């Protein structure tokens, strides 16, 4: 038996390397992704990530849908930050079509985006606490998260994929009754959030797991191009809401939340303090909601052109490139989600840490794997052309899987 075991170990590596595979199916991961950590005892000496298990071909699928249908498809890129995807797309297409969106619609979009940020960050708080084995915080934060889910359901009729956005405006208006229940919910959430901030900064046992773990310096964050709360926890001033205000952020300016330590604790603190900022923005928007129509007329075809749009998703900078060829369908929609920008930091930071710290470091970037999975082909062999037709790609795919099955 001993012989078989050592043979097995050697078959997997040239020397006596001990590799711990995490994923594609693993309790720590809520979505399929594959990580390989080489460990010596409990210390990680090398890390490797393989992306692409949940690639769904959404970018390609947009080319078969018209501008309106694409909106609903793109909203389904992410189940947590669905509204921000639709917002980015709508803002981009509206810019392309030269349509002026009524101010009330922009304010409501921003309001829903902030509610979504609250629900996303509270979800993350629970998941990250669970990764650290602190299930009580997990249960409580998810219980309180139901408040914001109820608000979103009351406002739009849906808990996720709210489909609040239309090209040229929004679907749902906010009346006094909804405004009151939002304010009531926010008051409750603010009180609870203050409690959670106290827990993650004072609970001695929890701090042992987060303080000084996975430290990313400001320089590292800049070099690895980290985005969103992950970067802000390392002191990088990068927040699209502040740098390049979109939607209603010019009227309701957001304040940037920063921490300097760059460890997992700082990521907790930054995200929780962002919740307070969201509460403030929501109150401000509700108090000063502009009066206007909810939507502007929108053309069916859009004149040829291309544009980029950047928005601040709960996980960081979300980037859209949209190209029109004058028809009623987009020629190209390119999406870059924040997780892919932060993924390199996980691989980098994991090295030198204990295996037990890995789930927290991974959860620290708030990964959303299905959003970031891309079909990427890197090949310089066989004189393959740079531009592939659909048919060529199809043939390549068939050949790839045939070759792998043999």
């Amino acid at each position, binding site marked *: 038996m001993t012989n078989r075991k050592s043979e097995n170990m050697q078959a997997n590596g040239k020397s006596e390397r001990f590799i711990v595979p995490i994923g594609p199916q693993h309790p720590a991961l809520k979505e399929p992704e594959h990580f390989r950590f080489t460990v010596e005892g409990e210390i990680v000496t090398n890390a490797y990530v393989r992306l692409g298990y949940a690639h769904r071909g959404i970018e390609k699928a947009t080319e078969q849908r018209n501008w309106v249908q694409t909106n609903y498809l793109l909203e389904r890129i992410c189940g947590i930050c669905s509204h921000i995807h639709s917002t980015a797309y709508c803002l981009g297409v509206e810019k392309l079509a030269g349509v002026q969106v009524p101010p009330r619609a922009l304010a409501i979009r921003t309001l829903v985006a902030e509610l979504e940020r609250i629900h996303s960050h509270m979800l993350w708080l629970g998941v990250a606490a669970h990764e650290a084995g602190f299930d*009580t915080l997990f249960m409580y934060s998810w219980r309180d998260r139901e408040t914001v889910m109820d608000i979103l359901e009351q406002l739009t009729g849906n808990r996720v994929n709210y489909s609040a956005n239309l090209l040229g405006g929004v679907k749902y208006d906010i009346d006094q009754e909804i405004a009151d229940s939002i304010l009531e919910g926010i008051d409750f959430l603010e009180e609870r959030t203050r409690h959670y901030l106290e827990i993650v900064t004072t609970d001695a046992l929890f701090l042992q797991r987060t303080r000084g773990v996975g430290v990313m310096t400001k320089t590292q964050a800049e070099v690895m191009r980290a985005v969103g709360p992950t970067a802000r926890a390392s002191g990088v001033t990068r927040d699209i809401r502040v740098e390049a205000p979109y939607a209603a952020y010019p009227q309701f300016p957001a304040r940037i939340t920063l921490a300097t330590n760059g460890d997992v604790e700082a990521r907790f603190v930054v995200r929780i303090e962002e919740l307070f900022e969201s509460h403030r923005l929501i109150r401000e928007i509700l108090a000063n909601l502009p009066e206007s129509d909810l939507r502007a007329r929108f053309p069916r075809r859009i004149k040829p052109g291309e544009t980029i749009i950047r928005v601040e998703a709960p996980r960081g900078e979300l980037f859209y490139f949209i190209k029109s060829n004058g028809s009623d369908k987009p020629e190209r929609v390119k999406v870059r989600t924040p997780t892919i920008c932060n993924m390199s930091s996980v691989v980098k930071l994991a090295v030198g840490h204990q295996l037990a*710290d890995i789930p927290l470091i991974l959860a620290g970037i708030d990964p959303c794997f299905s959003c970031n999975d891309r079909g990427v082909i890197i090949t310089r062999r066989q004189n393959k052309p740079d531009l592939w037709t659909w048919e060529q790609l199809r043939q390549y795919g068939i050949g790839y899987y045939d070759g792998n099955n043999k």
Partner: protein
Amino acid sequence: MEIINNLIALLFFPAGLFLLVLGLAYEWVDRKLIAQFQNRIGPRWFQPLADTVKLLAKEEVVPEGVNVALFKGLPVVALAGGLTAALYVPMAGLPSTYSFQGDLIVTLYLLSLLTLCMGLAGSNTMDRFSLIGATRTLTQLFSYEAPFMLALLGPAMAARSWQISEITAYTDGRWLILTQPLGFIVALIGLMGKLELPPFDAPEAETEIVAGAMTEYSGKGLVLFHLGKSAEMVIGLTLIAAFYLGGVANPLYFILKTLALLFIIAGLQSLLARLRIDQTVGLWWRYGVLLVLVQWLILIVGQRIIL
């Protein structure tokens, strides 16, 4: 007659059926309490039993590359260790079935058998999660075992005997928690380490190593380990209640005192985040041993002064 009595002791009371049922009941109380502390509803009363029956009915998958005899035998040995230990403990407030000078040490070793079997079972397979889990299980064993044992020897020193029945006769009505509070704390937390309950659940941290040493176990093997752990929880609670909380002279005291301890354990489980394995070891050797040695010092000096 002798044989029949022995068989009853082994199969029904205090070991065997009684202990298994009590273990499942206490497991339910533990789960229900934690659920309530965490604002959840929690399982219904027969859930642990239903899990047991379900797992017993399931196929047991024996992975490739294991020693089959060991793989199948270790769960049986682990459960047998727990059940045997029950024979020397004043279960349900009744005097223990067997007793001899030094049975305290034997009981403590029988309780460690479960952890040892789990460590062996984990390292028997080729699964990486099992191997890391087994390493952590054994590392943890070496960290809590000494303080836990020393903490339970405190009452033995006070009673001037290594025989459980004599110690319980001494502690009956004497609340040693008042004179040996440090020993009580170490014993209770040591029991949590022994049972791999949070915050000492690094050996089975699901977000890192799936189910640790138990990853490859399914069906019967898994349920036997599980039952062994439940039995160990009951025995551990009984020992601590008997030694520190004024004895368990009758079944009512037994139930009340062990449930009170379980309440404290469930509260601690839901309050604390998981420790890393190096932090667990550090905690036990830096504070656990120190506390228990201070307790011993007080005890010895105290006895000198009194006598």
